[in-house]
């Protein structure tokens, strides 16, 4: 038997999120390559639409192929469950419950992508505005506070702001002017779209399908289907209302860029399934903050790409200094997220005559509970808790447990250090 790799448990989420980010950095590089090739034939405004359509159109086919490949059984287990998400058990249709969230996730993805391409088409050098995409972390903090009744702790607010500012500094270019129209599009179209997209995907990932956790592979596949529908709808409206022929042009160009887009979208697939898996483990804002590390991983990618096509690489030392400061901030912010976490076990004894089956469901609903197990022995249930601070543990968990009359007694064991098999 292979000796299993043991890592500190709290790093698992960060490993998944950062792996996803590395894949994303590669696709961003590929995007630059493909758009630069397309812009040889078409004006900048149209390139973004053509490329936007094809990422989803060709992306759907490559995704289906990858999903089929991941569905192959090897020694009784699906390939996808071994390498991507343990919850995966073959492709399936979505349930009624999922449908609503898929509508939102698809709409969010379509809005944010089209908005993003709109920003690209508005200006020659988008690098001055694109960094503001990272402000989405702060949007998410706010939305979570309202929608999930999940008030951020001081450390979460601090780290998010540090990461956001760092990411802006790390990816900004001085050469570009900041114009109002693209900036407004960024703040009012792209970012809200992305918030809708990530919050809905997190909801989807947290849903239980037939009593089992939802898997990121199916979520990604269905999200693409829904997004493509919305993108076609938006482009149709645009075509009809302004007399353009974006859809026809897109389909015509499909073959030309097929190879490169296929590679790019395949990598995107892995970036997203890992992103969705990370969303299931941590809050959307924090997942997004970890993904701000893209400013680091995109640097080597930029260098490689700059040898193939001409893209602006910062020349002045000041700009590099600013970038370096930005990267340090991002790393610091992510580290403080990673380190500020508390885990505990709670051993629970139920009163006699209480149905454990019901009690387990009730405890599972408490926010911050990561797992509950019914066990044999002195205690009836063992729950595992993951929270940011001990006071939160009191407010959110102890108080709730105290209010359940079926509990006879419980004991709290704070985890001092933890290792897990990854």
């Amino acid at each position, binding site marked *: 038997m292979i000796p299993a790799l043991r890592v500190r448990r709290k790093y698992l989420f960060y490993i998944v999120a950062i792996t996803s980010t590395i894949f994303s950095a590669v696709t961003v590089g590929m995007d630059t390559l493909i758009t630069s090739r397309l812009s040889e034939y078409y004006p900048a405004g149209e390139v973004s639409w053509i490329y936007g359509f094809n990422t989803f159109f060709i992306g759907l086919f490559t995704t289906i192929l990858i999903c089929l490949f991941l569905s192959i059984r090897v020694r009784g287990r699906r390939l996808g469950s071994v390498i991507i998400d343990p919850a995966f058990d073959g492709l399936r249709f979505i349930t009624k419950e999922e449908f609503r969230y898929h509508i939102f996730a698809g709409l969010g993805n379509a809005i944010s992508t089209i908005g993003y391409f709109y920003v690209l088409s508005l200006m020659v050098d988008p690098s001055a505005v694109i960094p503001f995409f990272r402000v989405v972390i702060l949007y998410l903090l706010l939305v979570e506070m309202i929608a999930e009744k999940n008030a951020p702790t001081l450390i979460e607010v601090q780290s998010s702001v540090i990461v956001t500012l760092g990411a802006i500094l790390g990816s900004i270019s001085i050469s570009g002017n900041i114009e109002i129209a693209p900036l407004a599009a960024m703040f009012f179209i792209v970012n809200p779209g992305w918030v809708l997209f990530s919050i809905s995907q997190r909801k989807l990932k947290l849903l239980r399908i037939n009593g089992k956790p939802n898997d990121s592979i199916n979520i990604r596949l269905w999200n693409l289907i829904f997004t493509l529908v919305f993108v076609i709808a938006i482009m149709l409206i645009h075509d009809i209302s302004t007399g353009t022929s974006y859809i026809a042009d897109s389909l015509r160009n499909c073959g030309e860029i097929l190879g490169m887009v296929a590679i790019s979208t395949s990598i995107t697939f892995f970036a997203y399934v890992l992103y969705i898996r990370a969303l299931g483990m941590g809050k959307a804002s924090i997942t997004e903050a970890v993904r701000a590390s893209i400013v680091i991983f995109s640097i080597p990618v930029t260098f490689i790409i700059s040898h193939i096509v001409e893209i602006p690489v910062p020349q002045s030392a000041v700009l590099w200094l600013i970038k370096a400061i930005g990267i340090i901030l991002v790393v610091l912010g992510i580290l403080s997220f990673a380190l500020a976490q508390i885990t505990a076990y709670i051993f629970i004894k139920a009163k006699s005559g209480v149905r454990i089956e019901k009690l387990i469901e009730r405890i599972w609903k408490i926010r911050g509970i990561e797992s509950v197990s019914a066990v044999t022995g002195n205690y009836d249930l063992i729950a595992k808790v993951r929270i940011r601070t001990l006071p939160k543990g009191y407010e959110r968990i102890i108080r709730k447990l105290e209010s359940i009359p079926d509990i006879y007694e419980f*004991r709290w064991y704070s985890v001092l250090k933890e290792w897990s098999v990854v």
Partner: protein
Amino acid sequence: MIKAYILVRTRVGKLEEVLEKAKEIENVENISVVSGDYDIIIKVKVNDLEDLMKLTDKLHLINGIKQTVTYVIEKEISL
């Protein structure tokens, strides 16, 4: 497939040594050092009860472990 929590009490001064040995045991999913009247909580995943017995036997052979209590999981809900 059987999962279980094993609660471990160690002799004072032996914690680090016990941890290093416990990490090498097969089928161990998670090891947590905790504060309270136990010192370590180990989560294991084995094929059957016999494997569970073999695993606890291995734990008992580690010098420094004073006592273990095993809770077999009947049902688990987790993320």
